């Protein structure tokens, strides 16, 4: 049932513990004696606040609190998992979860490889990424002031029929205990502001979305030039009203930072997730050490980039996060791993485990993924060599079939490139291709690489991610 100790005014801060460590350690010891090879309890307490204004009026504001915990038990080479908001029941659920794992193990054939976990350092500590301005202390009036600034700057044109602006901040507190003696507590915050401008001209209606945010407190939003964010969104929406439908076919493509980030997230990041590789659902199976991209392509996934929307100090198996270099000069160098896949492939674990919240078990996930910069000075230098192509900007999201290695991502707006110049605005541009072909077609990158707008990634569970890189040129892509 819904019985949970809530985050309240007494617990605002960073030191409070929700789990009864002594009692749960005894339960973890007992379940190990009863047959578990490994057991853990992970609790996540969220305090969040979202607000939406529409055309300058408060539409809704939602303060919330969630708490959930997940028990994982590994026994006889199989997992049992139990998730609950009933924190008081965790000790009682330990043994039923063991039995669940044993039931799975009993159904496995002798040829199935039993699950094991790579060894990791056992750590007992607390680690808190404290923001300069704790977002939990922000008044609704402060949030509305910033939202109104975005709304006002995105409004004010006869063709703009609606401006909706949203806010979301969250304080994430995690506690982790394991039968191996891990006892860690960590916390951090994320803050996000977004807007959507809808414009209409006769029967034509278009919308443009903008977003800014990352890991951090109120200071992060205050660092944003919100006025410019709104003006740019309005300008883009109005431009889309006059944009032409994109040409289709194979052609050179230049992607801005947002799209470069989505491209590398979809085309490379997902196939690099070792749980998919182990399941036989990745086109990169067996490709470690192989050349899969052009020489100028180096890709990292790094949860330690503070401020990135995918940043987090510790992964959801209790490991210190670290930078992973997925591709170095075109050669596939590393998969994203959690402990299970690291053991499966006999690799060093690299802290790639993330769960959506306290009620989900960890999967192998990306964090902040970006391509390193190249040698081109700027966009103009990438464009000047092209007779014909498309320059695409802003992401509407993407998707990948990791097994086939095919992907798709969509741009918010685009331009035609003709004779070395950016010319007509285009709309409804999407790009698709095959991972193992298109990585080799990257033939130009600007020097500066940085994270673009924050995003969300779905893989059965949704987690915040940061993506980005330089401006990127692909010599041939399928534009739709």
């Amino acid at each position, binding site marked *: 049932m819904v019985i*949970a100790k809530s985050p309240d005014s007494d617990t605002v801060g960073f030191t409070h513990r929700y789990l009864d460590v002594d009692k749960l350690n005894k339960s973890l010891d007992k379940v190990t004696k009863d047959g578990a090879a490994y057991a853990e309890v992970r609790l996540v307490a969220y305090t969040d606040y979202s607000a939406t204004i529409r055309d300058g009026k408060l539409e809704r504001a939602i303060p919330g*609190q969630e708490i959930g915990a997940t028990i994982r038990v590994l026994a006889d080479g*199989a997992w*049992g998992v139990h998730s609950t908001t009933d924190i008081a029941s965790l000790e009682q659920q330990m043994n039923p979860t063991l039995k669940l794992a044993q039931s799975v193990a009993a*159904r496995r054939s002798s040829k199935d490889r039993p699950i094991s976990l790579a060894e990791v350092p056992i750590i007992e500590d607390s680690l808190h990424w404290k923001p300069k301005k704790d977002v939990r202390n922000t008044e609704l009036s402060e949030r509305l002031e910033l939202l109104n600034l975005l709304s006002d700057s995105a409004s004010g044109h006869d063709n703009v029929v609606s401006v909706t602006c949203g806010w979301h901040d969250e304080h994430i507190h995690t506690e982790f205990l394991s039968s191996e003696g891990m006892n860690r507590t960590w916390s951090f915050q994320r803050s996000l502001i977004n807007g959507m401008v809808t414009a209409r001209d006769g029967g034509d209606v278009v919308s443009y979305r903008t977003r800014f945010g990352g890991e951090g407190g109120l200071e992060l939003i205050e660092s944003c030039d919100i006025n410019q964010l709104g003006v740019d969104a309005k300008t883009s929406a109005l431009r889309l009203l006059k944009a032409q439908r994109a040409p289709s076919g194979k052609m050179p493509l230049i992607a801005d930072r947002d799209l470069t980030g989505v491209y590398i997230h979809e085309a490379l990041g997902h196939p690099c997730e070792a749980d998919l590789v*182990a399941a*036989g659902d990745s086109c990169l199976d067996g490709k470690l050490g192989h050349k899969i991209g052009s020489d100028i392509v180096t890709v990292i996934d790094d949860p330690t980039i503070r401020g990135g929307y995918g940043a987090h100090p510790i992964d959801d198996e209790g490991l210190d996060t670290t930078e992973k270099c997925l591709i170095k000069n075109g050669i596939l160098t590393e998969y994203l791993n959690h402990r299970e896949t690291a053991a499966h492939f006999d690799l060093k674990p690299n802290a790639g485990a993330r769960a959506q919240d306290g009620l989900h078990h960890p999967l192998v996930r990306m964090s902040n993924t970006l391509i390193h910069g190249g040698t081109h000075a700027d966009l103009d230098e990438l464009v000047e060599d092209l007779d014909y192509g498309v320059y695409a900007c802003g992401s509407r999201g993407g998707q990948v079939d990791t097994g*086939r290695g095919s992907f798709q991502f969509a741009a918010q707006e685009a331009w035609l490139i003709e004779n070395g110049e950016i010319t007509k605005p285009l709309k409804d541009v999407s790009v698709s291709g095959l991972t193992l072909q298109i990585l080799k077609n990257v033939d130009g990158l600007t020097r500066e690489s940085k994270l673009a707008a924050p995003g969300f990634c779905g893989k059965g569970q949704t987690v915040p991610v940061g993506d980005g890189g330089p401006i990127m040129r692909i010599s041939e892509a399928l534009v739709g």
Partner: protein
Amino acid sequence: MILLPDGALERLQAGCKTIGDRCNALGINSWEVVATQSYGHQIDIEGGKISLAAGGGEGGFGIRILDDGKFGFAYLVDVNSADTAIKSALSIARMSPSVPGFVLPSAQSAQQVSDLYDSSVVDMSSEDLLIQADDIISEVASLDKRAVVTGGGIGVSANASAIFSSEGVDAAGVTTSHGVGVQVSIDEGGQLTSSWQSKSSRSKITQANECVARAVQWANLTRDPIKVETSGNDSVVMMTSEGFSPLFSVVVPNAIRGEKLVREESFWSGHMGNNVIASDLSLVDNARVPGGRSSGARDDEGVPTRKNSLIEQGRLVGSLWSTRDAAQQIAEGRIDIATSTGSAIRSGHQSPPVSGCSNLFLTSSQKGHSYEEMLEMIEDGYIVNSVMGAHTANPTSGDFSVTTSSILRVEGGEVIGAVKQAGLSGNLANALKDGVTLGDEVRPQGSYSSGSMYLPNVLLRNGLRVNPV
């Protein structure tokens, strides 16, 4: 493990009443408390074997309060912290704009919808699910020894919910669901093809064979692709229910929300009473379908549900409203008359209600056709069974540009082979305007926005562009 603990619903109702009492004690006259609690068992399959078994429950409470047309909302997990949440909601209400005429729904009797609860689902244990998962793995192997279930699983859940308000709304119930999803891959000769298929029901699924067989069939049909010598032409496309529903669910539920229509944020804005799609097509939202995936006796603010006719014979005749959306759009002068259509939806206890669809049906007054009959109608075109990137479609304009690796080339009414990959683009609102033929078998599908899509196979003759790799 027991799926649904004894007294679960009663405890949920007691929690609602406790929070309601606290609202009264704090001097709030108009309030509404909703509660949800779900319990489930789940088996995951990866790489051809069961990877884990999971179970558990989650839930919480949402409080909406109303003060002189101003509303505030907060959610919580612990009844003991109700006062903090209520005060937060009240402080938000005081900063919100007043919506004259907005009152919480009054108590009305609602007729139950049948077949939303199946005790045999509740009785299923993790062991039962493990047997079903094993059967799925075996079934796939028996259909094609090369085929492997690379992902997916099977799960059951019991979902208790309650609503209790100062206006006398007091309702509660438990629904069940049982779902199967399989990603089947065939990896042979350096060529990997795959297909995802799923099935969900309020009652116990005893046979998942049809869903499994379709996954194996499409993993096979898309092998050995042929080269197609066309480039980006407008094409005739038959989209299976599974391929069509993701695009349809991003675009259409948004377009028929009342507030979107009156705010000119829908491509059908300004067209009430006019023909907007082919004259034989109709669109109905019906939350009262027995056993429907998104059925219920009441909507998510307690208003009795009903069958809402939205498009009749191609003509836009209705739209979907929640209580607040209706009051707000009247107050802001965008429409003279609007009332709740029993179409309030929430994403659980964590959000206040908005307008949205339940079970959305696209139907035709013409005779439905079998897959084979529809295939014969295609002289030169394609069949698409799934798309990538449907969520990137633009719900405001109806424009989309997606990719498919589950596409067959058709010439002279016959499938001549698979296409490795193709871009598929167009505008869904335009594509539905004429030249549409529907299949004879409606299959319920999920949604990227709200509700469930009840769609047959759809043959679209206009406005779709296919660009094979």
